[in-house]
């Protein structure tokens, strides 16, 4: 089915995804990202959350937050870029992912000029 939104993964995020081993967790992650692809800004909590203090960054929450995994993305018009993943149920891991997303986000500023 054609989706109205485009989802791209940053190459560094793709590498990080390799450390997520469980099939169930990977399925849950692809499921929530698939929902984003279909719904865009129509994807509602608890599937997604704005990141406090990080304008423009969103946290995708597989299994409505009951999974430890998080994807952090940025929206530019009809494109969502998955910037990074937090894999462990651990605040340090999540904070590190947010920092990585903040650092990678400017790579996609060019999309705003299209």
């Amino acid at each position: 089915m054609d989706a109205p939104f485009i989802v791209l993964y940053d190459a560094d995020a793709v590498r990080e995804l390799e450390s997520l081993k469980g099939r169930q967790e990977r399925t849950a992650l692809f499921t929530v990202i698939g929902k984003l692809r279909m719904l865009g800004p129509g994807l509602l909590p608890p599937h997604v959350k704005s990141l406090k203090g990080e304008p423009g960054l969103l946290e995708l929450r597989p299994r409505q937050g009951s999974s430890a995994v998080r994807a952090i993305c940025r929206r530019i018009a009809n494109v969502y870029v998955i910037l990074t993943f937090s894999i462990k149920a651990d605040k340090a891991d999540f904070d590190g992912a947010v920092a990585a997303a903040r650092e990678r986000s400017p790579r996609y500023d060019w999309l705003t000029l299209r």
Partner: protein
Amino acid sequence: MTVQPKTVSHETLLAEEMARDPAFREEWERTALARLVAVQLIKYRAANKLSQRALAERLGKKQPYVARLEAGDTNPDFETLVNISRALGIEFVIDIAPAAKTPRLVPQEVAAEHATKRRSGVSVVVAAAG
């Protein structure tokens, strides 16, 4: 000149996952209906500015019922689809046919766009309209 960063599309990554892990592919194809229903319910909530609890009330159920359906990992049964259609006005089509045959009960463009499983000799089409 702007150097564009290297990216991978969701479609490509998903296709690679399916090629790498046949069990993932099997599960992904098997739960296409679950994901379709999840998307329809979230879309309905967004259009009507409803919480999961408020949507559950419209369906005559409790919030965990909606949470389970919105998870999109378990195929709903027939009665659940009937309940959703009655309460929310969403239309569902499920067409199961031998892959070698052209489906006769759904328009070809719907079949082409929504077919989810052809590998085991069967074409399964699941579609919805709000």
